[in-house]
């Protein structure tokens, strides 16, 4: 631009000089010269303006570039901050609180710890002849704290204590190697899932108390087991070895040489089919076989009052086996659960020993009045109880059950007193479950129980339960 101005000035000078020479050659016309000077001055002015404009643009461009760089730097810093935050999130443990309790999980998901609890507060009332009101009571049926979790991605663990009794009881303490859904290996104290009702999580049982087949099955014991799901979940197998236990009992330590094998096969043949009517059917058989030396268990009604006890001095001493065929069916709001149990044991008193077979069965049907699906894993209300959007009355379910336990008649009178123990208890009951939300449930059961054996009045029991699971 400076060159252009120089050229104009040169032209101006040359023009002026030319004018002078021309003036020497011819009479100068002052007006013409003046006019040309003015024209050139105007041209010079215009050029200066152009130069100034371009200079301004150059400055503006520089400012723009500077501003552009500042914006880019700010954007990049934000980008780096976001990357850093994302990287940090990948290593920051995750704390969560929800329907499944409190949980703490490592960022990579390989470790976690979950804290849960189960509280069941019961009211028990008994009616009718021979049902003394001093049996009526409030009680805490269960008060469990449960720690579960995962270690190194492939190991699960569980520690559960129940504080409801007179002293805390360690219910579960196991670790499970979980390399594949087809094979899991468990060591420690755990539930023996040979019967259907105990296999169901306690919070989901249809009735407040177990039916009689569960009284003949083992509860918890210490040992090792393999378990897995084959054929895409259709076949559930379980096999293990445990310290032997009395019917319905749990083992804390082994009696000498008292070990049992336990197993269960359960099939859901239509699990992966499109047939919605049959999809919820499952059946199988569980059992135990081994030796048992120890005190045998008595039996109680579904109203939780004892109706059979062994004579003092009776011990189990010999082969013990159980067989428990079982079936369930769930379809929409309808649910059915049925099982049969036979338990063989060899009680001894002094030198007298016998082989006894006690038998039990139950059939429980349920219907969810509010339309939710009934499942083996409970009922989830569509509209939890409350007021406001998506709130409602929770889920309501009616339940009916018939169940019976028949003690081997050979138990009398050597091993049990026929004057005080009944040889059979048959119970018919109905109940109502109100699922306020996935964590809270109120249940009420009525059971009428008749007995065979000594003159024992029927039992009419009413149990109401408030259950909170978190």
């Amino acid at each position, binding site marked *: 631009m400076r060159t252009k101005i120089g050229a104009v000035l040169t032209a101006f000078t040359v023009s002026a000089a030319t004018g002078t020479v021309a003036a020497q050659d011819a009479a100068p016309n002052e007006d013409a010269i003046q006019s040309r000077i003015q024209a050139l001055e105007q041209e010079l002015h215009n050029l200066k303006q152009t130069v100034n404009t371009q200079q301004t643009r150059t400055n503006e461009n520089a400012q723009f570039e500077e501003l552009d760089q500042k914006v*880019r730097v700010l954007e990049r810093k934000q980008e780096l901050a976001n990357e850093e935050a994302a990287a940090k999130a990948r290593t920051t443990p995750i704390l969560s609180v929800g329907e499944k309790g409190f949980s703490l999980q490592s960022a990579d998901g390989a470790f976690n710890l979950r804290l849960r609890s189960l509280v069941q507060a019961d009211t028990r009332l008994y009616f009718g002849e021979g049902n003394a009101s001093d049996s009526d009571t409030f009680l805490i049926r269960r008060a469990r704290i449960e720690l579960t979790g995962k270690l190194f991605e492939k190991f699960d663990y569980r520690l559960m204590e129940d504080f409801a009794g007179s002293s805390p009881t360690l219910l579960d303490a196991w670790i499970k190697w979980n390399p594949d859904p087809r094979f899991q290996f468990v060591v420690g104290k755990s539930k023996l899932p040979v019967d259907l009702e105990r296999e169901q999580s306690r919070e989901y049982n249809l009735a407040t108390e177990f039916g009689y087949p569960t009284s003949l099955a083992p509860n918890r014991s210490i040992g090792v087991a393999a378990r897995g799901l084959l054929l895409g979940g259709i076949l559930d197998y379980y096999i293990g070895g445990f310290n032997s236990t009395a019917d319905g009992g749990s083992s804390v330590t082994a009696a000498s040489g008292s070990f049992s094998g336990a197993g269960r096969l359960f099939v859901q043949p239509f699990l992966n089919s499109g047939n919605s009517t049959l999809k919820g059917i499952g059946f199988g058989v569980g059992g135990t076989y081994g030796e048992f030396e120890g005190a045998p268990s008595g039996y109680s009604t579904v109203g939780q009052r004892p109706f059979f006890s062994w004579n003092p001095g009776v011990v189990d001493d010999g082969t013990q086996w159980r067989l428990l065929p079982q079936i369930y069916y769930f379809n929409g709001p309808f649910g059915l659960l049925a099982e049969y149990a036979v338990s063989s044991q060899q009680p001894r008193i002094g030198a007298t020993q016998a082989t006894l077979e006690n038998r039990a069965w139950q059939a429980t049907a349920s219907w969810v009045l509010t339309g939710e699906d009934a499942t083996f894993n409970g009922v989830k209300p569509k509209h939890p109880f409350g007021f406001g959007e998506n709130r409602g009355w929770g889920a309501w379910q009616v339940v009916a059950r018939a169940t019976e336990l028949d003690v081997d008649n050979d138990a009398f009178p050597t091993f049990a007193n026929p004057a005080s123990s009944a040889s059979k208890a048959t119970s018919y009951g109905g109940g109502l479950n109100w699922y306020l939300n996935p964590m809270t449930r109120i249940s009420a059961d009525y059971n009428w129980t008749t007995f065979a054996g000594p003159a024992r009045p029927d039992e009419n029991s009413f149990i109401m339960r408030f259950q909170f699971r978190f």
Partner: protein
Amino acid sequence: MKLTTIFGTIATVAAIAFPAAAKDHTLLNVSYDPTRELYVEYNKVFTKYWKDKTGDTVIVQQSHGGAGKQARAVIDGLEADVVTLALAYDIDAIAERTGRIPANWQSRLPNNSAPYTSTIVFLVRKGNPKGIKDWDDLVKPGVSVITPNPKTSGGARWNFLAAWAYAKKQYGSDEKAKEFVTKLYKNVPVLDSGARGSTITFVQRGIGDVFLSWENEAFLALNELGAGKFEIVVPSLSILAEPPVTVVDKTAKKKGNLEVAQAYLEHLYSSEAQRIIAKHYYRPFKPEDADPADLKRFPKLELVTVDEEFGGWQKAQKTHFADGGTFDQIYKP
């Protein structure tokens, strides 16, 4: 029932469910930022070499980031079988704090366990609009310099030391060198955590006038990331960068990978690997094995070493990059 019967039955079920696994190896190579492309190609060569030699299958997983961050990750439990980092100090730190690498690790492979070297050069925009020729141009007002954070990046520490070495030679003292690098870092608008991040800042985000770069990274940007958009400026003095490699013995042994991990690093010195190294713009330890055309790309320049100029990495780290060191004193974001 006998316990032996119970265990026997369970073992039988387990054996049916789980047949024995094939002999495969998965190696984790934890490396610094710009080596991605080099190891992608080298891993293919090595897996074939190992398959031919032993019949075993090797899968090499790569992890890249600023060398300091990568070393920290290994110290914190990242299960690297081998580390191929930007400088020896970071491997020393892993050895000291985890005990997973023996103290004499650097003497286990040739050339202080550095199968390749590199240096620091300048990458500028096409036409070099700011007329940058040497280190002095980087401290001028209005010049924007891109370099990563020496706290997290090995390459950034090489950059810092190269600038310091130049200034000390040019102006005669450590005090003057400190003034020089203080001015230089005033011209740094953003610190990435690693060299590849700085490459993105300069090349893709269009920030800065000059990028202090690994030589290999500068060539990569010049020829592949932004062809025709940049120029390399070779300063009058730079530093000889020796990125070392070593096996993380205890981790590799625990994972059953010790033998293959050792072979993985030893094979870096093979003719085949040295050729790949030069191809990816690293200066090979054995240039005679490289393609002469690749070697021609490397400019000749005066290079100082950390040992001669700074008394070794331990001292350099403590003086300049440890908490409260020179960098903390001069850099105020």
